[in-house]
């Protein structure tokens, strides 16, 4: 049977073309294809190994020695179109029609509407009902640092003021005046520690709302600020009244 390979067929018949599976035909071209000249449906997997159609060829004498008498051959109706092979491609989905669908997607661009800013409350994360141990620890740490900075600023400022007052009175053995550069740095640092303590307290209050230490610290700072304002106003009024009395 090796000599009956289709590649060695001396008389290739036009019905060898349908060796290709019928499903591979282009859907758009199926309606215009000539009739497939084959006598029986061909399976795609077997197409490469199928022998050529021998019924139409004359039988050689050597081969016919062991064969039964050849019956008169029926003419193959090669011109008869295979109806099934034509109907299948027609039933396939029609991509040509689908390709026209996206045309409807090109709608005119709507007028640009700028994004309006959302109210800030919508962005606020939900706070947990109870304070977790980690949050409590972190909040307490921030509050502790804030309190230390506040006390350190006040303490250093008080010590420097006392030393300056001591030097100014001339009671000490040595007269000492602080260099301007050191005074700048100390002024910057002392007020900086105060501001840093306030900022740390606010961070603790904003990030750990349930923290009691931060809450107490906030009210301490508010009371301290209020007390400072009242003291300044009272001192200012006192000296103003004193000056007025002296001028009189």
């Amino acid at each position, binding site marked *: 049977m090796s000599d009956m390979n289709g590649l060695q067929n001396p008389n290739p018949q036009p019905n060898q073309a349908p060796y290709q599976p019928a499903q591979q035909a282009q859907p758009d071209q199926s309606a215009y294809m000539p009739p497939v000249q084959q006598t029986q449906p061909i399976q795609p997997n077997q197409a490469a190994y199928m022998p050529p159609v021998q019924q139409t060829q004359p039988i050689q004498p050597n081969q016919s020695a062991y064969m039964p008498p050849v019956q008169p051959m029926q003419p193959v109706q090669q011109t008869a179109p295979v109806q099934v092979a034509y109907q299948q491609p027609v039933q396939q989905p029609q991509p040509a029609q689908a390709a026209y669908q996206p045309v409807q997607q090109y709608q005119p661009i709507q007028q*640009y509407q700028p994004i309006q*800013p959302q109210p800030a409350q919508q962005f606020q994360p939900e706070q947990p009902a109870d304070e977790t141990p980690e949050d409590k620890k972190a909040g307490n740490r921030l509050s502790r640092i804030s309190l230390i900075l506040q006390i350190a600023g006040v303490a250093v400022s008080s010590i420097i003021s006392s030393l300056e007052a001591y030097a100014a009175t001339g009671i000490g053995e040595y007269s000492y005046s602080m260099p*301007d550069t050191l005074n700048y740095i100390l*002024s910057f640092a002392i007020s900086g520690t105060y*501001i840093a303590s306030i900022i740390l307290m606010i961070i603790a*209050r904003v*990030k750990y709302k349930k923290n009691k230490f931060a809450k107490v610290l906030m009210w301490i700072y508010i009371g301290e600020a209020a007390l400072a304002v009242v003291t300044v106003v009272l001192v200012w009024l006192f000296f103003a009244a004193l000056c007025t009395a002296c001028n009189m």
Partner: protein
Amino acid sequence: MRFNYYGFFLIMSFVIPFAMASGILLHKKVAKMHVFFCAFINFLMAAYFSKIFALFTQGTSTDLLKSGFSSLGAAFGLVSGIIIYRFIYPPIAKDITDAYFLTAPLMYSIAKIGCHFAGCCHGIPYEGLFHISYSNEYFRTGNLFPVQATESIVFFLIFVICLIIYLKSEQKQILPPVLILCGICKFLLAYLREEQIGVLISLNQLLCIVAVILGIAIAIVQKHKLRKVVTQSDL
């Protein structure tokens, strides 16, 4: 007992703009706690850097409490406070920035009224219309150009212009117009000050140039972002 106009207008320069900024934030439904804390931080930073800048640039005193105030330092402190609160609570960053930058020209305008009464940072010698002169126990001057009053009026007009832009604009981008207008006006008005005589460009003017460049850069970036959003919406 004389009324201290300088102190009064200095306090008012914090109270009125901060109250207005807080009102804007409350109108935008920002939580009261954030409004209060933000105002507190901004006040502290503005006052602190105002004194620090005056301490380092004016050289009138070595003591922080006895030194004067610097408007440029206050502006720097205000920006620092806004940046700090942006890190503390980012969701309201844009609201805070818009509210406080919008009221910054008003703050400067009110503070300059105090300077006009006190006589500090006065103008060049001038004999024309609306000239002023100071005569008190500290100093006596000839006729001067009323540069403080001029600055106060100009910055109030800037505030009104920016307020109109803020109310009319749908994007509510107030940062570039404030930086550009304030930078240009302060740069030009500096030449009407007495301390500017013989000085081509001062440190304040250099910082004004930086502010204008920053405002232009922010405007370009915002326009690029807006164009990107429009392109994405087209796709």
